[in-house]
């Protein structure tokens, strides 16, 4: 079975880029969250609510499920904010990762996906993992550069990245889905990730 790649239209990417502009690092917001300041939660939703909902909607493709998982994401962040490093932690990458993992968990819980890796994802998204990530991790210029790099990838590379980030498929599952040898899929994946890594490194260097 061949996957039909969903190419992101330019205007949609631009809208997403504009949304990212608002995602500046805010240690004060993280501190207020740790103090369980109700207004901080309101500010957090105002800042990340649209992105979280859009990301989850992109993964689960169901509005009602996206609402449930958005609520679950913010609840999880609220309950785990105590473990977040308010000085060095990157709030945006953390909440985006939590949102993605809730959506992938949901996909894996459906009967069609047998293996459950909920505990594994929970460990990866622990707040301590996001300590020391660059404040500008979601800066618009970096998002733009990554988008440009993604656009230059081959169709196969784009496909495996989409399957990894938005469907949570392992290389073996991708090989089965695409009916291609595992080594071929791994090569596509390695090439795509190398390109992204290089692009992010150049962006960070300015």
């Amino acid at each position: 079975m061949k996957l039909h790649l969903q190419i992101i239209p330019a205007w949609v990417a631009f809208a997403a880029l504009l949304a990212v502009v608002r995602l500046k690092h805010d240690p004060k917001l993280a501190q207020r969250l740790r103090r369980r300041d109700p207004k901080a939660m309101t500010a957090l939703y105002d800042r990340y609510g649209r992105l979280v909902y859009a990301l989850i909607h992109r993964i689960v493709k169901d509005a009602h499920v996206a609402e449930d998982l958005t609520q679950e994401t913010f609840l999880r962040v609220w309950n785990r904010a105590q473990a977040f490093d308010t000085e060095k932690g990157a709030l945006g990458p953390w909440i985006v990762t939590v949102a993605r993992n809730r959506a992938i968990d949901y996909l894996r819980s459906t009967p069609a996906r047998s293996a459950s890796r909920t505990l594994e994802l929970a460990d990866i998204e622990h707040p301590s993992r996001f300590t020391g990530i660059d404040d500008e991790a979601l800066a618009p210029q970096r998002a733009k550069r990554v988008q440009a790099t993604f656009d230059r990838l081959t169709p196969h590379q784009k496909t495996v990245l989409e399957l990894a980030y938005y469907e949570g498929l392992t290389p073996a599952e991708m090989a089965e889905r695409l009916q291609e040898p595992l080594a071929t899929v791994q090569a596509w994946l390695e090439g795509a990730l190398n390109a992204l890594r290089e692009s992010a490194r150049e962006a960070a260097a300015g």
Partner: protein
Amino acid sequence: MTCEHLRGSFELYALGLLGESDEKSAIAAHLDQGCPACNARMKDALAIQALMLSQAPEVLPPMRLKCRVLGAVGIQPMGWTWFAALCAAAMLIAALWYGVISSERRRQRDEARASLAEAITERDRLHSAFQFLQDPETKQYNFGDPNAPHGIVYLHPQFGLLLIASQLPPVPQDRMYQLWILPKHGGAAQPAGTFRSASDASAVYQLNRRLNPADISGVAVTVEPASGSQMPTLPLLFVAPIG
């Protein structure tokens, strides 16, 4: 495994896609041991992951979702609640004020209309009486004494009868004066309408129908129930002879 062997696997580890492989265990071990190179690669992988995920096409969440999310952590969105409550209270007060003002204006308008209708009726009545009095065919008949009900009856063959009376005794609210036409050649008195007196005990009453003065011996007035009577209730208040 060395750090170099693992360097290409951090993105898949961050995405939770390494399953139960040796690579996963090795990366977890390196990270737990605080390996600087592996920790730096892990952070880079998480940053790339966040950048990729932030490229999702924008889909606007429903408005209710914010309330739902805040409610789930026990927060009421007070700002908008208070704002909405204030708006609702202001609108309610404005509606009540407008209602009271409208009601008062409606009452004043109805009163003005009633007064105007009364004035128009009175004007028409006086105009009719004036025409009646000015016409050369009108005949005048005086009746009564100065200390008792007295006045003038005017008769006109086409316009009918005009009674102007003074010194009328007061009557209860449920009673009215009733005019009677007394035929010249005998027969029963004919009812000719009811009327009330003004505050100065005077009354002006006009009967608009054709009358032949030659057939009338007089007009009389009695006090009757407000709905009027078919036969006069004695005693007669006064009689004005005609002819």
